[in-house]
């Protein structure tokens, strides 16, 4: 597979798995308005996944469609970071994961909207508008929970202790990626890391939240080594296409 395909597939899987996770909140959100708002976010992100998967399918030398990529691949063929497959947990955990991904996507899509690959630049520019709004929402929720009650603070701190170690994977480097960055196609992970850290650390340091200092970093998702959660999730997501191949809506 080409480096470009691997790159686009990583971005596509990040959005597909995140969108699927978010949609698990549909109908069981904390209150009606928030339920609808988060479902809107999930739909936006699944829309981004659709565009990216369609592009990946074009780059792949086979007849596979975007649907085949989404519903017929096995766990080890998914290239998403482990962060997005983590369970929703409580609302603070869902929203903290969302905040991490929104900050990442904002800077990623900003950089990619200048990509030399026009199709990627187009997808990024379109997605950027949506991500701006997602971040406005998740940013406010983090502030609200951090400065809210003792309970909301404790829950958010527990989520931060749990999820912090997973963000490093978003900025992993590889020879293949460096080459794409040099060609002006991919976003530079070093720059993204800098932008992400300065924004996230900026927000967290304005609250009493403490960043865990264990040094442990999750890794492996980008090469298909996932946590125990992805397989279970795919069972549900892919069930219909696996049980009734080629069935249509």
């Amino acid at each position, binding site marked *: 597979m080409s480096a470009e395909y691997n790159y686009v597939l990583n971005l596509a899987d990040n959005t597909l798995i995140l969108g699927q996770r978010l949609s698990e909140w549909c109908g069981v959100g904390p209150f009606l*308005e928030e339920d609808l708002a988060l479902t809107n976010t999930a739909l936006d992100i699944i829309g981004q996944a659709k565009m990216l998967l369609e592009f990946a399918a074009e780059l792949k030398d086979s007849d596979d469609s975007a649907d085949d990529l989404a519903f017929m691949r096995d766990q080890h063929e998914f290239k998403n970071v482990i962060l997005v497959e983590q369970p929703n947990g409580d609302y603070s955990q869902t929203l903290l994961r969302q905040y991490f991904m929104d900050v990442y996507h904002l800077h990623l899509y900003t950089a990619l909207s200048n990509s030399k690959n026009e199709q990627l630049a187009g997808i990024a520019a379109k997605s950027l508008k949506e991500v701006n709004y997602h971040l406005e929402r998740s940013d406010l929720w983090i502030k609200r929970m951090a400065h809210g009650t003792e309970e909301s603070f404790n829950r958010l701190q527990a989520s931060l202790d749990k999820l912090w170690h997973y963000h490093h994977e978003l900025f992993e480097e590889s020879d293949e990626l460096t080459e794409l960055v040099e060609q002006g196609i991919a976003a530079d992970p070093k720059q993204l890391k800098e932008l992400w850290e300065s924004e996230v650390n900026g927000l967290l340091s304005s609250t009493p939240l403490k960043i865990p200092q264990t040094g442990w970093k999750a890794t492996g998702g980008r090469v298909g080594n996932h946590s125990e959660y992805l397989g279970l999730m795919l069972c549900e997501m892919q069930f219909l296409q696996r049980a009734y191949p080629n069935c249509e809506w």
Partner: protein
Amino acid sequence: MKLYEVFLRAKSGLSHKHVGSVHATDAQMAMQNARDLYTRREEGESIWVVDSTQIISSNPNDKAAYFEPAVDKIYRHPSFYPFDKEVKNI
């Protein structure tokens, strides 16, 4: 949670219209919830949210005194003039 009333302007030149209400803990959340509940299908291009307690409404018991004296005074209505076809939204 507090209740906020939501007003939308469909396009520039028109006035904001009441479309419903949302629950929210603060004004920013009310604005975002209004956006997510009422504008996903291009219904508007401007949103106002107003804390519901800030609305002063007429008392239903005053209905007769407030509104009924207008019923038999049709000359107050501009209904005897033909409108130009170009004039919309009146």
